[in-house]
C-alpha cells in the first residue's frame, strides 16, 4: 500500500472507502505494529531521547500493550499528538491506543465516545511557591498572585478552591508551561499552579530546586489513563488487562529480574495465572498464553516503570503517593486475575 501512496495521492485512486470492519485487535495483529498516540513531549511521560528512542511513563504502557499483543515491545509506531489532535486521531482510527496523560472525565468517556481502560497515574492540581515566601499551606495564600494557564480546568479549580476557603488571589494568565516557568522564576507571580506531576517536573529543571516547595494541598482529581475507542470491547479488554497485569505484577512481586524464574511455575496460583502457566486467561483475550509475561518483561512491573521514568531517583523525583499499591495506602488496585 505504502509504495503506491504516491500514485494513490496523485490519481486519487485507491481511496475506495473500505470500512474498517475488523476489530482493532485483528487489525493490530495483521499490521504487526501498534499505533500508539503519545504526547509530543512531556518530561518523564513521553519524549524521544538523543537517539530518537521514545522513553517515558506513557511510552512504557504502549510498549507493554505491544508486547502483550505482538510479543515485541518495539513493535510500536508512536504517533505524537497535541492536546488538540489527540481525540480526533483516536476517533478516526489513526491510532489504536492513546496513552497521553489524559484526564478521565465524564464527558470524555460518555460524550466523546471513548473508553478509559484504567488509571496509570493519579494526578491532581497543586501549588509551587518559593521557600522564601514562608508559606506552608495553600490556605495562607490570601492576596497572592498566581500564575495559571488560561483555558484549562486548572483555572476553574483554582477559583473554586479560593472561594471555598474565602481568600482572595490575583491571577497572572499565561499560555504555556514554558512561559509559566519563566514568569514564575522572574517573580511575576508568587505561586505557580498546575498538575502536581508537572510542578515536580518543572521544579526539577530549576537552577536551585531546593529553593522552591510544593504545598501539601491537592485541589483537584486528575486521574490520567490510557484510552481506546468506544464500542470495541475486545480491544479495550486487552489494553485494560495489560495495565492491570503491570499493576498486579508489582503487587505479587513479579519483576523484570525474577519473571523468567517465576514463569517456570510457582506456588501462587494467581501469579501462575498471570504468567500463563495455569489457566487460559491469554486465550480468553485472544492472545498467547504468555501475553502478560511479555508485557511485564517489556519494561518491568508498574513500580519499575514508575521508578525508572518519574520516580524519586530521577530528576522528576515524584513520590508514589496516591500511586502506591493499595497495600501501601495508595489507590492502585488491580481486580483479580481468575
Amino acid at each position, binding site marked *: 500500500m*505504502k509504495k503506491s501512496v504516491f*500514485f494513490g495521492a496523485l*490519481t486519487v485512486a*485507491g481511496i475506495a472507502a473500505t470500512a474498517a470492519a475488523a476489530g482493532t485487535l485483528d487489525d493490530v495483529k495483521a499490521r504487526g505494529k501498534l499505533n500508539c498516540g503519545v504526547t509530543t513531549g512531556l518530561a518523564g511521560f513521553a519524549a*524521544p531521547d538523543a537517539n530518537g528512542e521514545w522513553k517515558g511513563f506513557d511510552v512504557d504502557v504502549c510498549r507493554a500493550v505491544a508486547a502483550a499483543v505482538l510479543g515485541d515491545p518495539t513493535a510500536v509506531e508512536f504517533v505524537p499528538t497535541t492536546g*488538540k*489532535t489527540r481525540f480526533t486521531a483516536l*476517533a478516526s482510527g489513526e491510532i489504536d491506543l492513546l496513552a497521553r496523560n489524559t484526564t478521565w472525565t465524564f464527558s470524555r468517556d460518555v460524550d466523546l465516545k471513548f473508553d478509559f481502560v484504567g488509571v496509570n497515574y493519579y494526578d491532581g492540581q497543586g501549588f509551587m511557591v518559593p521557600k522564601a515566601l514562608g508559606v506552608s499551606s495553600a490556605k495562607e495564600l490570601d492576596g497572592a498572585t498566581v500564575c495559571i494557564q488560561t483555558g484549562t480546568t486548572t483555572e476553574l479549580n483554582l477559583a473554586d478552591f479560593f472561594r471555598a476557603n474565602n481568600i482572595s488571589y490575583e491571577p497572572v494568565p499565561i499560555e504555556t508551561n514554558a512561559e509559566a516557568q519563566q514568569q514564575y522564576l522572574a517573580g511575576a507571580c508568587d505561586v505557580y499552579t498546575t498538575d502536581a506531576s508537572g510542578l515536580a517536573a518543572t521544579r526539577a529543571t*530549576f537552577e536551585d530546586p531546593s529553593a522552591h516547595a510544593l504545598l501539601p494541598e491537592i485541589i483537584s482529581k486528575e486521574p490520567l489513563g490510557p484510552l481506546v475507542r468506544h464500542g470495541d470491547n475486545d480491544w479495550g479488554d486487552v489494553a485494560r488487562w495489560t495495565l492491570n497485569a503491570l499493576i498486579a505484577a508489582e503487587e505479587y512481586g513479579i519483576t523484570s529480574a525474577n519473571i523468567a524464574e517465576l514463569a517456570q511455575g510457582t506456588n501462587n496460583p494467581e501469579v501462575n495465572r498471570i504468567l500463563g502457566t495455569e489457566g487460559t486467561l491469554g486465550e480468553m483475550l485472544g492472545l498467547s498464553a504468555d501475553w502478560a509475561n511479555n508485557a511485564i518483561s517489556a519494561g518491568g512491573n508498574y513500580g519499575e516503570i514508575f521508578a525508572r521514568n518519574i520516580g524519586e531517583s530521577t530528576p522528576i523525583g515524584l513520590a508514589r503517593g496516591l500511586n502506591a499499591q493499595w497495600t501501601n495506602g495508595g489507590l492502585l488496585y488491580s481486580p483479580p486475575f481468575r
Partner: protein
Amino acid sequence: MSDTHAESVAFVRTEPVPSAPPPFQATGPVKWIRENLFANVPNTILTLVALYAIYVVLSAILPWIVNGIWNTDSLAECREILQGATGACFSVLTERWHQLLFGFTYPSELYWRPTLAFVLLFFAAAPVLFFDLPRKLLIFTALYPFIAYYLIWGGTIWVPIFALLGFAGGYLTYARFVTQSFAKGFFGGIAAAFLIWTLAGYITPLLAAENPAMAAVPSRDMGGFMLNMMLGVICVSLSLPIGIALALGRQSSMPLIKLVCVVFIEFVRGVPLITLLFVASVVLAYFFPPEASIDLILRVIIMITMFSSAYIAEVIRGGLAALPKGQYEAADSLGLDYPQAMRLIILPQALKISIPGIVNVAVGLFKDTTLVSVISMFDLVGMIRGPILASTEWNGVYWELFMFAALLFFVVCYGISQYSQWLERRLATDHR
C-alpha cells in the same frame, strides 16, 4: 618689482610656504567622529546614550556567548560547570544538532541523502534563478524533483521514474494536440499523465525489489529544518505557476473560469493557514479509511500550496493591473493570440513588477512552515518545543535553541531577499 628691492631686504622666499597639515581635530577619524557623532549638544547626548545602550546589550550577551559550554550531556552539568556564572549551554546544540536538522526519527546513517538533495537543490535552482547560465542546465532542473524525491524518501526507484514518465507522456500528448486546439492539448495531456500514473500504480508493486537499494523512509520520519526546507521549496515552486494561472483566470472573460478562480482565491485568503492545516491533519483523517489515507506531508503540502498560490495570484494580479492598457492593445494589434500575448508581452512585465510581492509571500510562507508544529509534525520549532524541551536533560534551555532556529531561518530568508534585490536590478530595463 621684486628685483628693485632685491638688495634692500635680507631674505626673500622663492617658493610658497608648504601648507601646514590641517589641525588634528579636522582630519581623519577624529573629524569624522566630530562631524557625525558629536556635532552639537543633542547629537552628543544621543551618541553617549547609544554607546551606553550598546555597552549594556553587549555586556549581557558577550559573556553569555563566550562562556558558552559546548560539551556536556545535560543542562544540570552545564550549570555545575558554570557555578552560577553567566554562560550559554550550547551543548544542547552539539548533542541534538542532528535532531534539529533532520528530525528525531530519520535514520542517522542516511543523513547523506537529504544533505545531497539539499546540495543538488542549488544546482537545480541556479539556471532558474540566474538566466545567464546555459539553458541546457534546465534539463537537470526538470529532473531534480524526481531525484530529490528518490533521495529523501528512498524506496523503489520505479516510483520517481513512472512519475517522470507520466509528466513526459502528458507533455508529448500536449505537444501533439496543442496545434489543433489548446484545450484539446491541455486536457489530453492531463489525461495521458493520469493514465500512465494509474497503470504505474498497478505495475510498481510488481517491479519493486524486496530490498530497494535506497532504504525507504516514511514521511512520518521527516522532521527538523529539513521539513521546513522541503515544505518551503516545494510549496513556493508549486504555488508560482498555480498563482499565475489563478491570476490570469481571475481576469478571464469566461464567466465560469473567472468564478472558479475568484471563489478559490477569496475562500483560501479568507481562512487562516492554521485552520487549513488542521483540516489537513484532523478532518481529512475522518474521510479516508485509516490504511488508505494520503500521506500527512502530502496533505500539508497541498494545503500550504493552496494557501500561498491564492496570495501569489493576488500579487500577480496587482502586476497585471499595473500594466497600461496600451500593452494589451499593442499585443492584440500585432495579431498575437492570447497565450502568445501573455507569454511574450504581458507576463514578463507583470511578473517583474510583482517580484517584491512574490518574494514577500515566499519569505512569509517559508516562515509559516513552522506552523506545522501545531499539528504534531516535528519541524525545527516542533522539535524544540516538543521532544528537546521535554527531555529531562534539556528542559529549561530556551535561548540557545530558539536563537539557533532564528539563525537558520534568518540565513535563508536574507538570502532570498538579497537575490530578489539583485533580480530587480538585473531586470531594470525601464528608462530612469
